[in-house]
């Protein structure tokens, strides 16, 4: 179901993808969805963090101290914020990569921390910021790894695996790279391959940690188009950490702005991305102009006060 629920075969043609108004979706927290296993019903999944406290064993203070956040079902939520604001930590907490010190993350009403790792991985995928792989693995083999949670210990790949891999490669637009070795790819091509891998996982919820950072413009747009396709043609719930606030505004149905581990603003992009927010959260003076492609942000100067 999920990612490929709709015909998501041609990412290039995906819906121009700029009007945010069309996509306000079923608003925020709702439906204490059926707590049974994956694959039931066609409803988009929701992911709720409640009073989440996240930290690292080495740090005395938690990075995220009691925040609640709800990813809008079937839509794209962007997390933005300056370096060290806790975006990635929050994302890892949502993905159960860090055990919460307090609070909980509920995926369709079930605590992710108490879920079996494989059944969680069937419903929730995470693309980490830095991914390593052996250089000599081919793109296709890498994408096949995305099927790991769907396979039993001794099971070989099934036709369903093959279909999921094909669709993922298609959607990520890396068919031409299929037989290349990952070590020979450029950074942008690598990122597409990794996105294909996490798409092959075929999850209801997809968490992406800075998928566009360090990519050239072309590949940034490729990645954004993939996310736009997911938004418009599938019911996947996407949470994406983005460095570029303009990208976030353009891409996301909802934007959550973090600073020092606190949520400072949340809501539709045009409400969140404002000059005040940029001053408050990012400590820059900036011009924000509404255009028909969403808000345009022109940073003017950094603020140096206290």
């Amino acid at each position, binding site marked *: 179901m999920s990612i490929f629920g709709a015909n998501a075969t041609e990412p290039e043609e995906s819906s121009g993808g700029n009007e945010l108004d069309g996509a306000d979706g079923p608003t925020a927290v709702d439906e204490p969805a059926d707590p049974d296993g994956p694959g039931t019903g066609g409803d988009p999944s929701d992911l709720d963090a409640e009073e989440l406290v996240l930290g690292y064993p080495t740090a005395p203070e938690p990075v995220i101290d009691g925040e609640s956040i709800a990813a809008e079902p079937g839509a794209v939520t962007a997390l933005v914020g300056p370096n060290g604001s806790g975006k990635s930590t929050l994302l890892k907490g949502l993905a159960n990569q860090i055990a919460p010190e307090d609070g909980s993350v509920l995926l369709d009403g079930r605590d992710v921390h108490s879920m079996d*790792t494989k*059944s969680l991985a069937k419903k929730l995928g995470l693309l980490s910021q830095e991914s*390593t792989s052996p250089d000599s*693995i081919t793109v296709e083999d890498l994408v096949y*790894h*995305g099927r790991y949670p769907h396979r039993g210990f001794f099971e070989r790949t099934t036709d369903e695996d093959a279909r999921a891999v094909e669709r993922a490669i298609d959607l990520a637009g890396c068919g031409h790279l299929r037989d290349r070795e990952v*070590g*020979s790819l450029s950074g942008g091509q690598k990122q597409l391959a990794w996105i294909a891998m996490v798409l092959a996982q075929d999850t209801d919820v997809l968490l992406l940690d800075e998928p566009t950072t360090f990519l050239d413009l072309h590949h940034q747009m490729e990645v954004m188009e993939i996310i736009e396709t997911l938004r418009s043609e599938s019911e996947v719930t996407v949470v994406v950490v983005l460095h570029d606030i303009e990208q976030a505004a353009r891409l996301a149905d909802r934007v959550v702005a973090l600073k020092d581990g606190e949520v400072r603003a949340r809501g539709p992009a045009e409400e969140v991305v404002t000059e005040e927010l940029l001053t408050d959260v990012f400590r820059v003076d900036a011009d924000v102009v509404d255009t028909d492609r969403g808000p345009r942000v022109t940073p003017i100067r950094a603020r140096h006060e206290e």
Partner: protein
Amino acid sequence: MTGGETRTDGGSVAEGEGRTVGGESPARRPGEGNRLGWLFEQRLAAVIAGSLALVVVAGLVQVSFGTYSMTVGGAWRAVFDPAILLDPRWFLNFLLGEELMRAATGFQGELPRLARETLVVWNIRLPRVLVGVVVGMNLAVSGAIFQAVTRNELASPFILGVSSGAGLMILLTLVVFGGLSTFLPIVAALGGSVAFLVVYAIAWKNGTSPVRLVLAGVIVGTVFNSLQTGLFFFADDIGVVQSAIQWTTGSLTGTDWEQVRMALPWTLVAVTLSLAGSRQLNLLLLGEQTAKSLGMSIERVRFALSGVAVLAAAASIAVAGIVSFVGLIVPHVVRNLVGSDYKRVIVGCLFVGPALMVGADVGARLGMSVLTGADAQVPVGIVTGLVGGPYFLYLMRRQQNMGDL
């Protein structure tokens, strides 16, 4: 091992060809009727063939030469002596031991007499070759697993304290508890396994990590090695010291069918498990985070795979002592030849490991008499080090990117 085919990293043209020939096209892959298609991938097939050839040649040399000398033809005839090959009782006798053979077949009389040459080959020389094969397999597979689990290119079967634990127990048995020396193989294997558990316990702190494991291995290794070296001072005669050195450097001298019987069952278990675990190993290579987010219970898998690797290492220690370098170098050789897919790496190791081990044992058994005319053997561990070191150097100079882990 098979000469010039070594692949360079990063996709040269020649390699691209290799990929297409052997590579699975998406359409074929899932439905492909034969599950073992990947085995016939060109490079892997070449590695297997080359290694087999080496084992056969080295094995032939081993059975032909020695104190009782015979012609190569005579040795061949002895190996294929129908008196043995066509008599399952002999096989059972060798593989299960005389008692089990009698129990299984109900045979009570005397086994038929064999020709003298057949006797020498089958009773003395061939089992040594087989022990070499088994030890080579175990060490290579064990090293390959540890290199993936610790994501460390310098990992060997002995990185997590196994060799130092085994070494310490060997010395303790020989020097202090002389009464236990009949159980030496088992005591050594147990010492290695216990040391591994100690390493794991030290490394554990809300889970482990590759670096913590390796560091804990260094800690345990340092302490145990000091104790082991200290014990040498309490050895009162040279015989004990020589025996200790033989065990701690690894030797196939005097190995017999009994050693084959001892190691074979564990080897089968370890090999099966490591083949079954190859997909997990592949996933571990993608890094802990990715493995975790794909739903792997990483601590459980890491411990289980390490356990398999320790089992393999222990089986080889029990029959041959601590043979160094094989487990470090063979996985590198194989990866350089067949790429990083662990299914292929493990299969490659099953062939290249024996090739190196049996080849090195030729030097260990016959080298001294060729060089000096003296009728003496050196521990095979010395030869694997002498052969492996320079070859490793050659690989290192040749490759931009050694490990590709």
